[in-house]
């Protein structure tokens, strides 16, 4: 890599929000490019080619969704969405349009930084290959072997597929539709009860406390997230 510091494009119209984000991101060692409008953001994304984009959904000129679509026409760069709307629908729309994750305003910066790290990691092959370390459980996704406390745990083929789908986006949210399509196929895209049942099985096998999972997290109404240590 020629440039050591990752660059982040920030498409946000509120100057006060840009101000504290600029300070936070700079203090974490990121280079920041700021765009106050959607139009500028789409252009800046193409000219600066940042490592990650943060896009506010409520922009004055055109919808943040449009910015996401325009970037996705030519780039796979990770995109995080800032959403003031609490409604799950708008989050899902943004994710369907190609965003990788979202943070709901108001947010604490710790949460945003964790998402940024997960976003930057996405697409970069992890050093330990297909190995997932979940506290006392470990899963080798390639060899299809899972152990817990040193003992082998049997996972079914569907359980492996589901876990792999989540692991491909480790740290990022994956929508229900996306998981159902990837694991069961497009004809089952709305069979959400499959997910409830299989996520419970995975938690029972891999989590210390299945009711209070630390890795296989639910984003209620949106999807699931595999949380792994930073």
């Amino acid at each position, binding site marked *: 890599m020629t440039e050591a510091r990752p660059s982040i494009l920030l498409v946000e119209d509120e100057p006060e929000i840009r101000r504290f984000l600029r300070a936070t991101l700079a203090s974490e060692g990121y280079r920041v490019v700021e765009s106050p409008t959607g139009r500028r953001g789409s252009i800046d994304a193409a000219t600066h080619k940042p490592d990650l984009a943060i896009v506010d959904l409520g922009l004055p000129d055109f919808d943040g969704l449009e910015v996401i679509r325009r970037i996705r026409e030519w780039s796979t760069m990770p995109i995080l969405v800032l959403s003031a709307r609490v409604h799950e629908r708008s989050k899902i729309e943004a994710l369907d349009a190609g965003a990788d994750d979202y943070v709901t305003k*108001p947010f604490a910066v710790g949460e945003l930084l964790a998402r940024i790290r997960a976003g930057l990691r996405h697409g970069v092959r992890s050093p330990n290959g297909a190995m997932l370390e979940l506290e006392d459980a470990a899963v080798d996704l390639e060899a299809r072997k899972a152990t817990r406390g040193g003992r082998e745990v049997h996972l079914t083929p569907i359980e492996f597929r589901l876990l792999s789908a989540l692991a491909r986006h480790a740290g990022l949210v994956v929508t229900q539709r996306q998981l159902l399509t990837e694991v069961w196929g497009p004809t089952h895209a709305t*069979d959400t009860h499959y997910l409830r049942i299989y996520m419970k099985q995975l938690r029972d096998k891999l989590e210390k406390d299945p009711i*209070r999972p630390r890795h296989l997290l639910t984003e209620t*109404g949106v999807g699931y997230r595999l949380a792994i240590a930073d």
Partner: protein
Amino acid sequence: MKRRFPGSGYAWAAAAMAACTLAGLAMRPRFDLVNVAMVYVLGVVVVALRNTRGPAIAAAVLALAAFDFLFVPPQGTFTVDDVQYLLTFAILLAIALVVSHLGEDVRRRAQAQAALRVEAETERIRATLLASISHDLRTPLAVMTGASSTLAERGEKLDAAERAALAKSIFEQSREMSDHVSKVLEMTRLETGSIVLERDWASLAEIAGSVLRRLAERLAARRVMLEIPADLPLVRVDAPLVEQALANLMENAARHTPPGTVVRLRVQRAPEELVVSVENFGAELPEADLERIFAKFERGVAESSGGMGLGLAICRAIVRLHGGRAWAERIAGGGIAFRFTLPLEPAPAMPPEPAAVERP
């Protein structure tokens, strides 16, 4: 006012005139023509009172035509021998116009008054809301203004620990305020009926886990016990809303019980519903208050423990939308239980996964 379909006034007019004509034909042998005309006048007045000008005029014209054709000599024609009947016609038309105008006026006034009443009620609700919001937002705002101005103006005179403490209190108060604002918005959304449930199969164990994660910090000083059976059936609900309902109950537990209190989150299966309970073993409330606290802006006791008194009202509104019940009861031996139910539906089929092929 009830709205009727557009042609109904004219149908009314035709029906009324047909009735008058039948009455007139029955009267004709024994009564004067003037009295028959009076029957038509009555019919036109009734139609004009209940309808707008159009149907009233239509009734008058129909009345004239029928009266002329059937009763005025020469009968069976629309010709008129005696000029005095032209005056009858003119008067009939005038009556239709005047009465329909009066009727419209009365109706318009009634509508205006009803609108005024609704407006007054809305105004009263708005005033209560504003009073409550301004009270609940003023404290966090005062803390935030004070703490942030201290940091901005004399931050360099404070040591690092003091600066950190001030910043933390700004953070906490702003989160509290943001929480208030979302509750007010949520309540408004629920009350205006603008929420359409997006039902989907959901697991209460998952929803409970999500609530515990969201409130982990606030519940850290309470001892949370879970009693959630492993084989719970799924429910078909709007999961984010049910999560909100449960979160409000858990948040109340954190807010209104002393640290160290045991809070038990329980889900039980009844024949046709799931019963979700949050049991606070450190809270006390008189029997008489158990229902009152579900009303908007009501709090358990005159207290400074924060909260807007919207949490339980929101919880109940969400549960009712789902066809369930929400209530509070005293626990024998001390404590308050908040419970709500969610109806069960037959679970959808899940195709069995073919037995895994043994790995070599």
